[in-house]
């Protein structure tokens, strides 16, 4: 049996006001122009907000969750008459999925690259050559591991 957990929404990160989900009245204005909803039958921002509100979110923050298909296009943010901000609810759910080790490999790898190198990718030899050919100034890349210091243990 599925158990509801009304306290679940309190766990959602509030930096970007994902807490506004309480105002959602399930009107579906967020669904119509959602590029992910148009392409994935199980991706529906209205339902995702409802699941977060009811605390029925094990699947959403579990492995291979559909939340990672969100295009972060912010159409739902603009269309929502209640300022419930579905996209921020989805980001907060992604954070919970990441914390429990359920983020997709690509996401973890990209974050690791930023933490280790300071950038999402490194400077390849061919790109260094291209920069020289174009005559753009030499690039000064961040010191390795620099961000780990500020982020603390």
């Amino acid at each position: 049996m599925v158990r509801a957990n009304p306290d679940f929404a309190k766990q959602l990160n509030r930096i970007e006001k994902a807490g506004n989900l309480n105002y959602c009245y399930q009107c579906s204005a967020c669904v119509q122009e959602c590029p992910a909803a148009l392409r994935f039958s199980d991706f529906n921002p209205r339902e995702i907000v409802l699941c977060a509100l009811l605390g029925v979110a094990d699947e959403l923050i579990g492995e291979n969750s559909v939340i990672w298909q969100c295009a972060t296009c912010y159409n739902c943010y603009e269309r929502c008459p209640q300022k419930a901000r579905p996209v921020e609810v989805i980001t907060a759910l992604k954070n919970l999925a990441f914390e429990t080790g359920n983020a997709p490999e690509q996401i973890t790898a990209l974050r690791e690259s930023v933490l280790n190198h300071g950038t999402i990718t490194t400077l390849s030899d061919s790109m260094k050559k291209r920069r020289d050919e174009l005559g753009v100034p030499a690039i000064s890349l961040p010191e390795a591991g620099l961000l780990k210091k500020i982020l603390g243990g």
Partner: protein
Amino acid sequence: MAQKELTLFPGCMIPLRYPQIEKAARFFFRTIGVEVSDIEGFTCCPEPWNVKGAGLTEWLTIAGRNLGIAQKHGGDLITLCNGCYSTLKEAKHAFSSDERTVEEVIKRIKSTDLPKPGDIRVLHFADLLSELWEPVISQCVKKRLEGANIAIHHGCHLLRPADVMKFDDPFDPEVLERIIESLGATPVRYRGYTDCCGRAILHRDKSLDVASAKLDSMKQAGADCVVVPCPACFEQFDLGQVEIKRKTKRVFDLPVLHFSQLLALALEADPSSLGLDYHRVPVVDLVSKFLS
């Protein structure tokens, strides 16, 4: 109005994957007389869907560090990327909130000898076009693109969330159309004008399906090329066309330019100096056909 001295926030994608966009932008800044300085210490903005998806607090801390560095060593920031623009502008906005997490992030940034982030402006290349067009840039235009039909793709994060980005209407943007018209070209409206490029959708086939739908709609509206303000959208449409062809056999042959490249051409940069041959969809015919 935008200042004439700015600090470049280079980001990752342009310097490390598409330096030809950086080349065009530097030519543009020099030609219009805006001094853009490079300072050391910036990292990835960080990227606003994956890194932000992994952890908002971490995302905000790294963004705050970048803003703090700009505040301490430089000035108002100029970026060529919607991702950097969105992260830095949203973070700046978040730093004015009184959420406890935000206060803790500010404390952490101050502990590294950087100021509380928030007192500088974050400008996109498109802001500069809008703010300096009449007084400065329009007078530097030497070449026109008479007869070209141009499909603008704004990219989501230049426009939305509109209450934070404050660039233009999130579903009926006009600012960049005026720029295209001033260059003698025609901005074409097409179905799904402000839709996403699909880049952030994790499932690659579906992601390309979003790009494909937009390219198709641009073609139907008679576009000769796509102009974008963002390297992620650039990659999705330029490299994306190669992937789409491989996977679905659909061919669009629609050249893609970053706004900085279009402007460099209009300001009479030598096209052969701009590295346009690094683009996957050839640009050369477009340049010879319309640039006069």
